[in-house]
């Protein structure tokens, strides 16, 4: 849900330009995985600010709680114990919507205006327009949107678009006690990430780097990873996320090609009638039966 209405760059299932007169600064939430202590304050802040309450789950014997994103838990900490060349490492990643530059969810959505992307880069679901088909779930390269069993609408992180619209940082950023999550203009955040990477490399993390995948035209949630060459070890962060050929065909070429082909077929049929005329019983056969007195 959103307060912004004049700075929309993309609107789902809409073929004309959305209201985009106002241009806002492109923002980024930078998650420095190397600074995260896994305290889950961000999870709590998220549900506090957005006033969502997940069902009380069961203990699975691990720290992950809840075990996965849900319609009420828009961000979760994912914990991984991984053997690397540095020995056993405990990698903690805050998972949630990446706010892609080219969002697969928005591309897949068939409901006009159910998903919008603001000029600041935030991808936001407008649940009142959502029809509950779940196409966004198939379109997302990061497996983020969750369909509510209560109202059959899809929910995910809004990057606190309501807070950002009035000049505040997202709730998770506000609450992070170690400064692992920071928020600001894209330029500032990329600059800050570079500084962090330089620092990490000096500390022996030779493969430290930024996770800002270009396959989705970059993201507006960016990670600093100590092992940027192997994002998969952070609980399956995809190495080269992209919308993918199936969704590209389904939501790209197929729509105009099939629509035009069906229109052309209908028009062709009509003009066949106009040029060739109907297929009637021949005069010869009609006569044969007329002579027979009855038809």
């Amino acid at each position: 849900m959103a307060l912004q209405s004049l700075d929309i760059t993309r609107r789902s299932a809409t073929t004309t330009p959305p209201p985009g007169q106002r241009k806002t600064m492109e923002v980024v939430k930078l998650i420095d995985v190397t600074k995260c202590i896994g305290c889950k304050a961000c999870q709590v802040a998220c549900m506090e600010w957005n006033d969502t309450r997940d069902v009380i789950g069961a203990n699975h014997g691990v720290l992950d709680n809840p075990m996965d994103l849900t319609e009420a838990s828009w961000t979760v900490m994912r914990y991984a114990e991984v053997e690397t060349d540095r020995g056993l490492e405990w990698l903690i990643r805050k998972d949630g919507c990446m706010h892609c530059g080219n969002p697969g969810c928005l591309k897949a959505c068939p409901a006009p205006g159910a998903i919008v992307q603001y000029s600041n880069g935030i991808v936001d679901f407008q649940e009142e327009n959502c029809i509950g088909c779940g196409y966004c779930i198939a379109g997302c390269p990061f497996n983020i949107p969750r369909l509510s069993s209560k109202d059959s609408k899809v929910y995910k992180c809004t990057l606190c678009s309501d807070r950002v619209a009035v000049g505040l940082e997202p709730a998770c950023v506000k609450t992070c006690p170690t400064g692992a999550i920071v928020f600001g203009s894209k330029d500032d955040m990329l600059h800050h990430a570079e500084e962090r990477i330089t620092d990490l490399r000096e500390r022996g993390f030779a493969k430290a780097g930024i996770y800002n995948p270009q396959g989705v035209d970059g993201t507006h949630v960016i990670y600093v990873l100590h092992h940027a060459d192997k994002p998969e070890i952070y609980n399956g962060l995809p190495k080269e996320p992209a919308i993918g050929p199936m969704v590209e065909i389904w939501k790209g070429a197929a729509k105009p090609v099939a629509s035009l082909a069906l229109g052309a077929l209908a028009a062709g049929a009509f003009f066949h009638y106009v040029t060739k005329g109907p297929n009637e019983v021949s005069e010869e056969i009609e006569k044969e039966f007329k002579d027979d007195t009855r038809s």
Partner: protein
Amino acid sequence: MIRDPEKLDRYTAPERVNHWLVAMTFILLALSGLALFHPAFFPLSQLFGGGVWTRILHPFIGAALICFFGSMFFRFRKSCITTAADWEWLSHSREMMNGDDRNMPEAGKLNGGQKLLFWMLVACMALLVLSGIVMWRAYFSFLFPVAVIRFAAVVHAATGAGMIALIIGHIYLAIWTKESIGAMLYGKVRRAWAKQHHPAWYREITGGRK
């Protein structure tokens, strides 16, 4: 009430009812499917009570169609078995569309084009049902990996468009061939019509009488 005893029975009442049940559900499916396919067609969702209702109803109408279509499959599958003569008929069908039917082999009760349409619709229905189950988010999608759902979406869209194309062709040919809609509406055709369009069938049921 058809009061002309000379007319020939072409389709039985159950066959006709079955056909029109399929036709009505298919039209509802095509309209709701198009609404979800391209934003240009999204206003069609208003016919079903809005986008949410379109999303809810489309798969259930599909379930109804597969029942009706399944019934029609068992009714017509034997009469739709193609023969060498049907393929010969099909190879000349372009000439016929151009208005020249001198070289057309004699068609039986159903011509090669009708039989081919039947089998193509059967293939489309099979693909649409399988891919549709995978895409049915409320009950089934969680059973499948996302790559399969994406593939099913492409199959469903392509096959759906293909089936709509086949039905546009079917409707047009029914309009083009005068009096054939009557055959499916009330089941009877004139003898002259039968001799013109389905001569082998005409001979068969009239016992060689012209």
